[in-house]
C-alpha cells in the first residue's frame, strides 16, 4: 500500500493534498461510529501535504514515507497537539515536545493525520477502558476492536489511514491487529526509543507500527528504530534494512509450535485457522517442530504483578501539579493529589495502581514483585531454549474472535485473555501479528482472526521475512472491513 501510494505521488497520478483530503473525508464520515480518533490534525496535515506537492512539482525527490498519512496512538506525545493517553486526567494536556518516534517520522516526511483513542494509559485489551468512549470494531460495530491500540487498528482497518503507530506492553499492538484483521509489529524491547511514550510498564513498553500488510510495517519500523540518547533502555544495535524483504519461500526455516499454547482454552475455529496457516507455511517449505514453553501458565499472573507495579510508580507523576486536570474540591495539598487522581483515573487504572502499590509495599514486595521477576527470568529462559530448536514460533494471539462491547466486565476474565501475549512481553522478544482467516460470528458477520510469529531478540528481519512470504501467498489482508 505505501509503495503504491508513493508511486502514485511521484508519478503525479494523485496530488498529496488530494490523498490527504480523501483520508480526512473517510475519517469525517466514519469517526462518529468508530470513535477511533480523539484529535484530527486537519489543518496541519493539509499544510504539510501541500508542501510535499510543491516539492514534487519542483522535481525534488521524496522519501518512501514522505506525504504518507499516519495515525498516532494517544499515548505518544506530539508537540502542540493534545495528547490524552485515553485518560480524563490529561484531557487538556498539550505536550511541549515530540516523542522520539515522532521526530523520526517527521524527518522521513510522514504526515500525522491525528491521535487515536486507546484504553487509558494502555490499561486494557479491548479499548473499552478509554475515558472517551469505546472504539468499535469496523468489522462489527457491536464488537470491540481489541486494545489497547484499538483506535489505531480500527483506523487502518477501516481505511481512515494507511498506517499507524501503537504501543504494546502486554499485547496492545497484537490484540487489536488480530481482531481488526491487519498487520502489526511488536519490536524487541529496546529496538525503538520509548522517549515520549507515556509510560505504562517501563520494562515491557514498546512502540510499533500497524499497517495493511507486512511490507508497510517493515518500512515504518525502519523509520522509527534506533538508539536514542534520551532513552537509556534503547539498544545501540544497527538498524537493518527491514523493508528489504526478498525471501520467496520458507525453505530452511524451522517453525516452532509451543505446545502449551494449543492445549486448552483456544476456540476450535481459531485453532483450525492457525493450524491451516501452519500447514500453508509447511507447504511453502518450512519445517514444523514441536517446542515447549514450560512456564506459560505463570505468565499472566507474573505480568499482572509486574505491570501494575510499574504503572503505579509511573502514574505517580499524574499529580495535577505541573500538568493534568486538578480537582476543584481539594481543600489541602493532599487532596489536590487524592481528589484529582480519584476524578481523573477510571476504575481499571485505579485497580492497577492499587494492585501495584500493594505488590510493592513493605511486607509484600518479596512475595509478589520479586517472586514475579524471578519467574520472569524462567519464562525468558523458556524462549532461549525454544529458539535453539526453531527460528521462530507461531502462536495464537487471542483464544477467540472479538467479543461484544460490555461482555467481559469481570477484571480477571479480561486479564486471562492475555494468555498468549504476556510471556513474550515479559521476555522482550519481537512478534509480528498477521491475519490468517475469518470466523463467522453468531450474528453472521465474518470476524478476523490472526496469529503471531515470535522471533529471537532483535530478530525482526527474520519474522518480517517469514510473515511476508506467508502473506504474499494468502489473501486475508485484502478483505476490507465492511460494517460501516
Amino acid at each position, binding site marked *: 500500500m505505501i509503495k503504491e501510494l508513493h508511486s502514485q505521488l511521484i508519478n503525479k497520478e494523485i496530488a498529496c493534498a488530494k490523498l490527504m483530503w480523501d483520508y480526512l473525508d473517510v475519517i469525517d464520515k466514519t469517526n462518529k461510529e468508530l470513535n477511533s480518533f480523539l484529535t484530527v490534525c486537519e489543518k496541519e496535515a493539509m499544510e504539510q501535504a501541500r508542501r510535499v506537492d510543491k516539492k514534487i512539482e519542483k522535481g525534488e525527490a521524496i522519501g518512501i514515507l514522505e506525504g504518507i498519512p499516519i495515525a498516532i496512538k494517544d499515548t505518544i506525545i506530539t508537540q502542540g497537539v493534545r495528547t490524552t493517553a485515553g485518560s480524563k486526567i490529561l484531557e487538556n494536556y498539550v505536550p511541549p515536545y515530540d516523542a522520539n518516534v515522532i521526530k523520526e517520522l517527521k524527518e522521513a516526511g510522514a504526515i500525522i493525520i491525528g491521535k487515536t483513542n486507546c484504553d487509558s494509559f494502555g490499561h486494557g485489551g479491548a479499548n473499552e477502558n478509554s475515558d472517551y468512549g469505546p472504539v468499535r470494531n469496523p468489522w462489527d460495530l457491536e464488537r470491540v476492536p481489541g486494545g489497547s491500540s484499538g483506535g489505531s487498528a480500527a483506523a487502518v482497518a477501516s481505511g481512515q489511514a494507511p498506517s499507524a503507530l501503537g504501543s504494546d506492553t502486554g499485547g496492545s499492538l497484537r490484540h487489536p491487529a488480530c481482531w481488526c484483521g491487519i498487520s502489526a509489529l511488536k519490536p524487541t524491547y529496546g529496538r525503538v526509543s520509548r522517549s515520549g511514550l507515556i509510560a505504562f510498564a517501563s520494562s515491557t513498553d514498546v512502540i510499533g507500527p500497524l499497517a495493511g500488510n507486512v511490507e508497510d510495517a517493515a518500512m515504518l519500523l525502519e523509520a522509527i528504530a534506533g538508539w536514542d*540518547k534520551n532513552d537509556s533502555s534503547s539498544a545501540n544495535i544497527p538498524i537493518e534494512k527491514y523493508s528489504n524483504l526478498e525471501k520467496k519461500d520458507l525453505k530452511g526455516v524451522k517453525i516452532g509450535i509451543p505446545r502449551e499454547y494449543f492445549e486448552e482454552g483456544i476456540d476450535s475455529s481459531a485453532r483450525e485457522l492457525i493450524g491451516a496457516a501452519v500447514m500453508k507455511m509447511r507447504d511453502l517449505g518450512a519445517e514444523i517442530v514441536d517446542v515447549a514453553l514450560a512456564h506459560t501458565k*505463570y505468565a499472566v499472573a507474573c505480568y499482572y504483578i509486574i505491570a501494575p507495579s510499574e504503572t503505579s510508580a509511573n502514574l505517580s507523576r499524574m499529580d495535577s501539579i505541573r500538568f493534568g486536570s486538578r480537582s476543584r474540591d481539594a481543600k489541602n495539598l493532599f487532596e489536590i493529589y487524592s481528589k484529582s487522581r480519584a476524578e481523573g483515573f477510571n476504575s481499571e487504572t485505579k485497580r492497577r*495502581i492499587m494492585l501495584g502499590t500493594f505488590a510493592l509495599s513493605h511486607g509484600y514486595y518479596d512475595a509478589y514483585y520479586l517472586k514475579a521477576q524471578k519467574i520472569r527470568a524462567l519464562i525468558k529462559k523458556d524462549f532461549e531454549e525454544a529458539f535453539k530448536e526453531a527460528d521462530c514460533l507461531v502462536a495464537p494471539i487471542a483464544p477467540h474472535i472479538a467479543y461484544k462491547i460490555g461482555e467481559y466486565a469481570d477484571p480477571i476474565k479480561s486479564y486471562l485473555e492475555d494468555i498468549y501475549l504476556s510471556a513474550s512481553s515479559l521476555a522482550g522478544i519481537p512478534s509480528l501479528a498477521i491475519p490468517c482467516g475469518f470466523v463467522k460470528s453468531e450474528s453472521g458477520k465474518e470476524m478476523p482472526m490472526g496469529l503471531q510469529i515470535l522471533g529471537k531478540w532483535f530478530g525482526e528481519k527474520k519474522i518480517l521475512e517469514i510473515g511476508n512470504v506467508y502473506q504474499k501467498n494468502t489473501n486475508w489482508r485484502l478483505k476490507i472491513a465492511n460494517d460501516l
Partner: protein
Amino acid sequence: MIFNLIVDLKTIKKIANLARIELSDEEEKLYASQLENVLDYFRLLNEADTSSVNLEESADSALCVKMREDKEAMDRKFNKKMLIENIPETENEFVKVKGVFKE
C-alpha cells in the same frame, strides 16, 4: 510465599492512601473484593521453583543501565509558554498549590 490473603478495609484504606487516590465507601468495598480475587489467582505462582534464579546474573547485558556524566544532558530547548500553559493553577508564572504547611 504468597499467602491466602484477605483484603480488609484497613488494607484498602492503607493502599489508597499510599497511592494518593481518594475512594468512596462503595469503591473501598468493591476494590477490596476485586483485589482479593486477583491476589487469590496469584497464588499459583507458589508452584514455580525459582530457587535457581539469580536476578543479577539474568539481567540483560545489551540493555544494562548505562551511566552518564553528571552534566546537562537534555538537548531540547523548551518553549516556556507551552510548559506554563499546562499548569492547572498559576500565579505570576509560578505553579500554585494549597499550603504545604498545616495551620
